[in-house]
């Protein structure tokens, strides 16, 4: 565990319907010392966790088993929790009012994940 990283210790929610990708994200986060507070692969689950968990950051897949995750984005925005979209779509796949949210395009490397998180945090 890397406790010297700038994101060391922050609490993160992973919302991603692809189990393997979700696991990889968890592993990446672990490497930089983040605490994964929970994972969600379905919209309802994502909504409830986004509402209830104590979070510093969220990674949000745009497409959750065919459903757009924008309601989750709204909850996170309302709670003032920074988040990034993890998506295979480009920025044009996003509603106009969410195009300023950082995007982590799939597939991604660790460096890109950290870059996106940094953009969301500041």
């Amino acid at each position, binding site marked *: 565990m890397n406790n010297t990283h700038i994101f060391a210790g922050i609490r993160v929610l992973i919302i991603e319907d*692809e189990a393997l990708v979700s696991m*990889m994200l968890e*592993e990446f986060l672990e490497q930089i010392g983040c605490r994964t507070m929970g994972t969600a692969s379905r919209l309802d689950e994502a909504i409830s966790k986004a509402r209830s968990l104590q979070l510093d950051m969220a990674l949000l897949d745009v497409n959750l088993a065919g459903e757009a995750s924008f309601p989750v984005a709204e909850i996170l925005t309302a709670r003032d929790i920074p988040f990034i979209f993890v998506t*295979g*779509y*480009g920025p044009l796949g996003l509603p106009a009012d969410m195009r300023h949210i950082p995007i982590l*395009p*799939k*597939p991604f490397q660790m460096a890109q994940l950290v870059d996106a998180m940094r953009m969301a945090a500041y």
Partner: protein
Amino acid sequence: MVAIPFSLPSPTSRAPRLLVTVVIGFAVALLALGTLLAQSDEPSRPAVTAGEAAVLLTLATALFAASIWANRKIQRDIDAKFHRLERFMQAFGQTQGMLRSLDGRIVFWGIGAERLYGYCEKEALGKDGVELLYTRCQTSLEDINSALVRDGEWQGELTRRHKDGRDIHIVSKWSLSRGEAGEPEVVIEVSHDITSIKLAERQLHQTNALLRAILETAPGLIYAKDIEGRIILANVTMLDLIDRPWSDVDGRTDMEFLNSNSQARTVMANDRRIMDRARTEEFEEVISHEGNHPRIWSSTKAPLRAADGKVIGLVGVSVEITERKRIEERLQLMVNELNHRVKNTLATVQAIASQTLRGGDPIVRQNLERRLMALAAAHDVLTRENWEGAGIDDVVTGALAPFGEGGDYRFAVSGPSLRLLPRAALALAMALHELTTNALKYGALSMPNGQVAINWQVVEGAKPLLRLTWTESGGPPVAAPSRRGFGVRLIERSLAQDFGGEASVIFDRPAGIIATIEAPLADVAASIEVTPFAQAGTK
């Protein structure tokens, strides 16, 4: 000399003729008397003296001379009048006129008639005009003749036949000339050739019929508007669409007959632009109708010009593309979905690899990850271009981007712009990735001053070739590896297959690696096509 075969009005008046007769008679009487007196031998009566006879003779001679003078003067009068008449007839002859007797025989045939019908005077005189000229008229000739006798004149259109066999259309005015006793004597005919006018008329009629047929059968909307945007023409399809009769549309603007004011404003603004710029444009227009979905039209509008070139309105054709747009949108949605799936799959593959190689050689894991990223980057370029191809510069720049941190100056990229087919774009991106990775580890880019020149060109010929070269310089001395690595094999095999050409990687000692890729241009480059709707107003 024109023939004047009918009786001319008396060339001399009655008074001079009487005078001449009297003078001549008087002179003859005097001569007879003088002669008689001179020959008398009767003794009872004194003979006329020689003096008296001389006086009588002189008087007679004078009278005779006077009569000759008078006669000549009359002749001069007649000549002058004939001359004037002749000139008049010549002038009349120029007007494509002719004269004919009541029974139809041609009695005067001028140069104009010859020019019009092709027959010379000799061929025409005395002939029946109707027969010779094959005269046809919508009114019967009997009716014309009776009208002529009743009204003194007739005017109308006739068809006649030229000597060379072609039909001539004429408009003719016939006047009846009467004799001194008022009896019909001769018909004066003045004609004008209207064949070319008739022909133009027929062509106009045909053009109109054709235009009407097009207007009524064309599946799209066809319309014309004046400079104020008022409808001056609309075909049945258009009237059906707006569900109004022509009388409700004629002279009205879109504001008055379209349901949506905002749509009408847009349409009229489009029209205004075309008339102001005096330029043809093609664009999409949306028209909604009560209770129906909005319909999308592809409109082509062109300025309508007067004979002097001034724009006086516009003509337009609109074809419905609602269904096409719907299919296009669905297709776009599917392409987006597919792109999304491809990227997700790549991410999953990456995740699988990451889990599988956990705890293994970090270099191997990194190599795999980078290759996946290169593949994804090439996909990005193609996705942006809707999988229709990708600019070769975009592909090259995209492939080099992850390595650009050391400064782009280490890459010298040059070549003409060219669109690559998707397959070729992916193969090239992967090849460049391998070359760059190799150069970073073992080649020019492993040294601070190392550089790579990437150059491509089209080699013209019967089958033009695309040739791309990768030339490393400033690197460490290179030696061909004992076993060709995956990267080199990927370049050589994948490019050969996907480029349909040849690729070779040369370990040129000591300069550095030189890679050459050559492929038939037709197999790798997308032809540059301008889609017909990529104009104003479209996406």
